[in-house]
């Protein structure tokens, strides 16, 4: 075994890849070869580190130096300074917001990582996901060994039950119970399915797990297969995750080569193999019955439940479906025991949850926190707060199925049940932060627009009901709302929730209901006063030039419809009738003299 004195970890997640980490890696390889360091320094392409806002990310061990926003041009300097001479390149080292003078050297010291507890993401950004040996080195496939040699299927199910693990895909159904139902069904053929059809806009934890630690998911699938008595597994992953698909396929190949998938795994007599099925990216295919239909080659449409998949699922056989993140927890639960997992998080929601932080937040990225952490801690401590000194307004959790949470609920501990109580939901873990510039009516319209688009059209409440709701919302943001619209929305929402066929329709009205609940005044302002309090809805605002105007005429030149008039060195005026509200003048004005009202 070769001994390397230093290892360069380059993030190969989708975020960093799209900002050029591939070229950075190549440059490292070239520069290291040029300096004759190949035998001393190893380069590893890892999965996502989580702090995508600081990408592309490079970490150098043994020091653990965390370099952020690395550009290809910076590589030469890192190689010649850090790797050759042992001097940290200070100006590239990641710095916490507000502590710019402190030179944080290593990952563990960064605010973003301090409060996190990584179970599902434990190997992401640490191992080379395309190398099964590295996964094995970090106790990979050890849980499987334990399961196959020391445990009976019912012991495995009992352990998962005792751990309190609940589905991380959104609904939060106890995983052990799901396994128990599938195990109880008698059939010659059963299936184990991994739901990697991550559809929520802004959620990317499943992608990151598949990209950064695909073997953890495979190992868990074999364990689950053993527990329920299935011999075949399918991973249903969307085709728009090319890196995840590629690494998953490499992982499956390697696991087969090592005999960890296939016939007679580890001489236990247990057979299990995994196949990948690509989805075309329809949101509804994340719903389990629609997902199974899609795997079978049919149109991805849901069907009524019962029968539940555990009785009659894929190819009419008993089937167990778990989400990627749920599965990523399983090997750790087996290794460390149910009591260990139960000790993390809260009584009703044990363990951790991964959230994808996005929107108006400084540290965009992936965070894994123990259940029971408050939203305030996630947004302000880990997430680094709201950029540009703006005020926090709301956070949207659970994507198009979830709801908005306002300031008053920032201090509630995050659990499945508390989130549902305040009208949102855990969902898959998308967390979109909004500041004072976001109009809540428009946010509701945005999410509903998404669900209307993604509705499969099979059942009437979802196909037509959500469309009617969207029409009302569109009317309101255009300033054409009428009295009674809010009540109409509420009534439609209630009926759709009660009658839609699947989870998509049943949860589609949530963003509307929660915004009405916490921001009813904004709806009323739009309807009654034809005013958008956040100054966001273009139809409801006008541009004014204040007395800060120096008469520089810059806005006159940039206005595409010549709506601005005025003479040099005198305050200009915007003709509201001509103005198309494009905002070009605001961007151009150097004195901040143009206001939206």
């Amino acid at each position, binding site marked *: *075994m*070769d*001994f*390397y*004195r*230093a*290892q360069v*970890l380059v993030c190969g997640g989708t975020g960093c890849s799209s900002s050029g980490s591939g070229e950075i890696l190549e440059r490292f390889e070239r520069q290291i070869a040029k300096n004759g360091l190949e035998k*001393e320094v*190893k380069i590893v392409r890892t999965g996502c580190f989580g702090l995508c806002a600081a990408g592309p990310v490079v970490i150098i*061990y*043994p*020091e*653990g130096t965390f370099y952020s926003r690395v550009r290809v041009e910076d590589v030469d300097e890192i190689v010649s300074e850090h790797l*050759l*001479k*042992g*001097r940290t390149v200070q100006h590239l080292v990641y710095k916490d917001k507000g502590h710019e003078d402190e030179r944080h050297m290593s990952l563990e010291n960064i605010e973003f990582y301090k409060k996190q507890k990584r179970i599902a993401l434990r190997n992401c950004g*640490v*191992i080379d996901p395309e190398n099964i*040996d*590295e996964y*094995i*080195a*970090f*106790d*990979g*496939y*050890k849980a499987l*060994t334990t399961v196959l*040699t020391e445990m009976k299927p019912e012991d495995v199910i009992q352990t998962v039950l005792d751990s309190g693990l609940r589905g991380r895909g959104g609904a939060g159904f106890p995983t052990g119970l799901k396994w128990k139902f599938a195990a109880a069904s008698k059939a010659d053929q059963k299936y184990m399915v991994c739901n990697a059809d991550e559809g929520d806009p802004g959620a990317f934890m499943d992608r990151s797990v598949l990209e950064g630690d695909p073997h953890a998911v495979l190992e868990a699938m074999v364990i689950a297969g053993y527990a329920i008595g299935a011999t075949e597994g399918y991973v249903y992953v969307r085709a728009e995750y090319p890196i995840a698909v590629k690494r998953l396929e490499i992982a499956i190949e390697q696991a087969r080569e*090592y*005999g*960890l998938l296939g016939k*007679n795994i*580890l*001489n236990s007599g247990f057979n299990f193999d995994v196949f990948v099925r690509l989805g075309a990216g329809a949101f509804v295919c994340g719903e389990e019955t629609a997902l199974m239909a899609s795997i079978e080659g049919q149109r991805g449409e849901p069907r009524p439940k019962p029968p539940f998949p555990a009785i009659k699922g894929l190819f009419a056989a008993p089937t167990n479906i778990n989400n990627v993140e749920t599965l990523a927890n399983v090997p750790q639960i087996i290794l460390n025991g149910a009591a260990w997992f139960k000790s993390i998080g809260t009584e009703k929601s044990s363990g951790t949850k991964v959230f994808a932080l996005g929107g108006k937040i400084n540290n965009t990225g992936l965070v894994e926190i123990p259940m029971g952490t408050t939203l305030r801690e996630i947004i302000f401590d880990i997430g680094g707060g709201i950029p540009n000194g703006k005020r926090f307004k709301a956070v949207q959790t659970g994507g198009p199925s979830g709801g908005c949470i306002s300031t008053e609920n920032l201090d509630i501990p995050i659990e499945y049940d508390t989130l549902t109580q305040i009208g949102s939901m855990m969902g898959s873990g998308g967390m979109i932060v909004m500041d004072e510039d976001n109009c809540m009516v428009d946010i509701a319209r945005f999410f509903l627009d998404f669900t209307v688009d993604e509705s499969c059209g099979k059942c009437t409440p979802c196909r037509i009901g959500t469309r009617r709701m969207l029409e009302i919302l569109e009317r309101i943001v255009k300033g054409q709302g009428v009295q009674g619209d809010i009540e109409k929305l509420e009534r439609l929402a209630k009926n759709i929730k009660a009658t839609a066929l699947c989870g998509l329709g049943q949860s589609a009205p949530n963003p509307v209901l929660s915004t009405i609940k916490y921001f009813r005044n904004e709806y009323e302002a739009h309807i009654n006063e034809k005013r958008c309090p956040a100054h966001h809805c273009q139809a409801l605002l006008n541009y004014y030039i204040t007395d800060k105007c120096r008469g520089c005429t810059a806005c006159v030149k940039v206005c595409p419809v010549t709506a601005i008039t005025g003479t040099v060195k005198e305050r200009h005026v915007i003709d509201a009738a001509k103005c198309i509200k494009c905002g070009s003048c605001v961007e151009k004005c150097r004195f901040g003299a143009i206001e939206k009202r």
Partner: protein
Amino acid sequence: MKSIAELEAIRQKTLERVSYRKDADNDIRVVVGMATCGIAAGARPVMLTFMDEIRKRNLQNVTVSQTGCIGMCRLEPMVDVIVPGKEKVTYVNLNPDMVPRIVTEHIVNGNPVMEYTIGAAEKK
């Protein structure tokens, strides 16, 4: 088809390579002065010999890293060997031939090679 024993062998073998990325607080650290003065005095061959010895002996929990100039350029190449819980030992005026002895006596057996240390050099 791999057996459980083979899996364990892979784990042990790979662990050496990846253990760097784990908590390194309990590692023995070999820190080589690699500023211009160190490099000019021949720190690179010294460092490479350290790595070679560690590789040959299959030592775990030893990291080799570099540092800058600490101001005693006349004593380069300098190497610090830091064993957790013990005082840091600084070796000076090293050449590759001296390294195997430091690895065997100090890193493996825990007895610093006194005659190579900065204390011995200062007395001369």
